[in-house]
């Protein structure tokens, strides 16, 4: 693509050289009419070199900055050319610069993304075609702007022509045949938005016009008229109503937003939103659909209070560059016309149009008198009213909530009373069903006291008696289990079965040891002995525990622990423990307590196992005794 274009340019160059002589393609009356062909050729040649230098192979929306530079360079060159401008444009020689859309990259990108969906629907060919139109229009306008002979009206006319041509093209051309009317409308919208956003800096408030002066004049004028109230313009705005007040503010905000929009239709959109809000508020004030008789004064009032920046410039910009078919019909057009009317009214405002005396009007204008009912004072009033209304609303809300809370409280009270009664009844019931019986505290028994059962218990040697019984009963069984002597057992061995053989081995192994005696005894006997031993041990442990811990552990703990341990002793082991009482007396001596260890033997009768109440005394007593012993 690039290469072919390059080639074509060279050919163009050669054509240019011979154009005036023979080439029909470039041979044109217009060219003949102007200055020398040599100059013409040179200029073109120079321009093309420039272009080739700066040209990026990708024609599109990238590298705007570069293109901007390129554009400005081109413009400077063209300024020199002057008269050739139109011709060169129409020749399409600058076609290579397709895709130059000015410096507003971000905004253009935003617009593009906004319309991405639309282009997805209408297809790529349409998109390229539209962009081709936009770029060619942009280039034309940029050139035109630099032309000192062309006024803003010319630019406006060109723009409007462009809109019309584009509308026609979209209406008629082949590639748009599948595009619905709605999308066509959107395409036009996009074109306008895109082109105008790019051209905004050139077309908005251009230095060639007096727009700026007009802006300043109207601003000054509105500032002078700051005393005008709604009443002066016969506006039925209820300045004290808070809702209305808010709507006035939001409509003012919308109107002020007009200056920041770039595309004409966006500016128009701001006006539409502003006016819709005014109509809503007028509907509230009038109590029915607002008519133009109500609307225009309200709009004038809002414009006076808003004093929008660059009002005239904005109005002129929209008038000149907004698609006229849109501006002259439709809601937007109507509201915009009303805005123009309002501005015109403000510009030509006289005492008569405010229904007041000439003198009074002049005094107001000179700031000599300030009316009492200005917007500001109304604002102050409004503020109070506003606050009051707000507070009233808050109070109302609070009262409601308070009532709710009170109701809930009373409900809760009732519930609580009910609950209380229920609980009382239930408790009574329970009391009747399950009466509380207080058991008397059991008296701790004296462990060390003389046990009455002691004499009744059989002596520890009782197992011998059992063995005697066994031997008496059956000879055979005794042979196996409890022979009195190993020799005897061995003699009886051969008579017995194989099992006895193994047993015999066992016996022979342990024959020399002391354990053989135990084993020789019957199993019952062994168990009994073990039991005795264990009971003796436990008994000793218990006695140890009691004697060792009681002095150290605080009395309270002892009081609690005592019955438990006591009951243990009491229930199960008491008969045996009493039997085994003698052994516990031996291990009593502990290395820490000298006094105890020394007395351990001597005071078996000391009631260390007495009830908790006596324990403290015991400790004291033992302590004293210990000291006495030490002294001794």
């Amino acid at each position, binding site marked *: 693509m690039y290469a072919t274009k390059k080639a074509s340019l060279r050919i163009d160059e050669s054509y240019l050289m011979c154009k005036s002589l023979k080439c029909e393609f470039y041979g044109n009356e217009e060219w003949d009419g102007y200055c020398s062909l040599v100059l013409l050729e040179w200029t073109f040649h120079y321009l093309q070199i420039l272009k080739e230098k700066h040209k990026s192979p990708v024609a599109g929306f990238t590298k705007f900055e570069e293109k901007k530079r390129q554009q400005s360079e081109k413009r400077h060159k063209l300024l020199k050319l002057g008269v050739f401008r139109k011709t060169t444009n129409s020749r399409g020689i600058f076609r290579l610069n397709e895709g130059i859309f000015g410096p507003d990259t971000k905004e253009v990108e935003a617009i593009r993304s906004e319309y991405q969906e639309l282009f997805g629907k209408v297809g790529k060919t349409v998109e390229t075609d539209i962009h081709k139109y936009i770029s060619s229009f942009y280039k034309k306008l940029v050139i035109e702007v630099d032309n000192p002979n062309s006024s803003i009206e010319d630019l406006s006319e060109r723009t409007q022509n462009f809109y019309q041509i584009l509308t026609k093209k979209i209406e008629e051309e082949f590639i748009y045949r599948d595009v619905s009317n709605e999308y066509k409308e959107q395409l036009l919208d996009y074109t306008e938005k895109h082109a105008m956003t790019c051209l905004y800096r050139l077309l908005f408030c251009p230095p060639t016009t007096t727009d700026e002066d007009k802006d300043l004049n109207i601003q000054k004028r509105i500032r002078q008229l700051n005393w005008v109230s709604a009443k002066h313009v016969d506006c039925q705005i209820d300045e004290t109503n808070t809702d209305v007040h808010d709507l006035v503010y939001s409509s003012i905000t919308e109107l002020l937003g007009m200056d920041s929009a770039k595309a004409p239709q966006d500016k128009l959109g701001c006006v539409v939103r502003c006016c819709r809000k005014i109509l809503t508020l007028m509907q509230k004030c009038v109590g029915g659909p607002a008519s133009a*008789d109500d609307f225009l004064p309200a709009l004038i009032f809002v414009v006076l209070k808003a004093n929008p920046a660059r009002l005239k410039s904005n109005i002129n910009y929209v008038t000149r560059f907004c698609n006229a*078919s849109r501006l002259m019909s439709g809601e937007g057009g109507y509201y915009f016309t009303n805005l123009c009317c309002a501005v015109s009214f403000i510009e030509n405002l006289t005492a008569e149009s405010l229904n007041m005396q000439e003198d009074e009007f002049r005094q107001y204008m000179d700031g000599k008198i300030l009316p009492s009912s200005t917007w500001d004072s109304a604002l102050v009033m409004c503020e109070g009213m506003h606050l009051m209304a707000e507070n009233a609303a808050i109070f109302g809300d609070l009262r409601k909530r308070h009532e709710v809370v009170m109701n809930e409280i009373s409900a809760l009270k009732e519930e609580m009373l009910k609950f209380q009664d229920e609980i009382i009844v239930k408790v009574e019931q329970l009391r009747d069903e399950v009466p509380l019986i207080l058991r008397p505290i059991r008296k701790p028994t004296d462990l060390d006291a003389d046990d009455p059962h002691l004499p009744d218990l059989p002596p520890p040697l009782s197992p011998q008696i059992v063995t005697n019984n066994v031997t008496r009963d059956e000879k055979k069984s005794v042979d196996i289990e409890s022979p009195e002597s190993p020799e005897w057992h061995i003699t009886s061995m051969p008579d017995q079965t194989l099992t006895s053989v193994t047993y015999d081995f066992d016996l022979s192994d342990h024959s020399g040891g002391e354990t053989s005696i135990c084993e020789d005894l019957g199993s019952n006997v062994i168990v009994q002995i073990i039991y005795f031993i264990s009971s003796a041990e436990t008994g000793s442990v218990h006695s140890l525990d009691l004697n060792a811990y009681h002095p150290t552990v605080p009395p309270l703990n002892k009081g609690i622990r005592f019955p438990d341990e006591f009951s243990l002793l009491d229930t199960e082991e008491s008969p045996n423990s009493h039997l085994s009482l003698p052994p516990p007396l031996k291990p009593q001596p502990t290395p820490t307590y000298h006094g105890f260890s020394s007395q351990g033997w001597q005071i078996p009768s000391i009631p260390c196992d007495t009830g908790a109440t006596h324990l403290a005394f015991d400790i004291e007593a033992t302590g004293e005794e210990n000291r006495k012993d030490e002294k001794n």
Partner: protein
Amino acid sequence: MADQLVNGGSGNYNFKVVLLGEGCVGKTSVVLRYVEDKFNEKHLTTLQATFLNKKLNIGGKRINLAIWDTAGQERFHALGPIYYRMSNGAVLVYDITDEDSFQKVKNWVKELKKMLGSEICLSIAGNKIDLGKERNVPVETAENYAASVGAMHFHTSAKQNIGIEEMFLELTQRMMQRAQEQEIQRASELTRTNSMRRNIVIVDEEETSPPSKSCCGT
């Protein structure tokens, strides 16, 4: 530009109609009766009666009437031209019980004629005929005046819904006729504007054609 506005292509028309009349003659009631078929009711769907659209279908052609209400107060009289610029039709409403309002109508007609010539179609509506007993503007005077300025006169009552539908319908038909006449006129005369338009078209076509030429060149 005005042509473009009127004929949106494919035989559809967009007409702009301005509603002129003094403050209390019932302009709003007339237009609301026409668009919403309601009078002075609370359940009007529109929030406003300043700008209303009415879609019509006459003879297979779709017509959209954009009805612009104007502020009728005397102090805004000077703003009239801004409102009725580029409008195709005007409905001038006066109150039959109010002689002054009729005089106002006369003023507006004069202005409209001065500004737009015969391009605009005029209808004069003598409103509030339900208050016929209090009539202050004689029927003959009004009708004669209307005829003298090439306007149609209608006796209307927004309250009782008399004559309003007919008035707008007749006005629309006249505007259509006028638009068609203009179309024919435009088509027949190959005037400067037409050639100019063609020129511009050619310019754009030329811009699109060079690629093929350059391709041929290589």
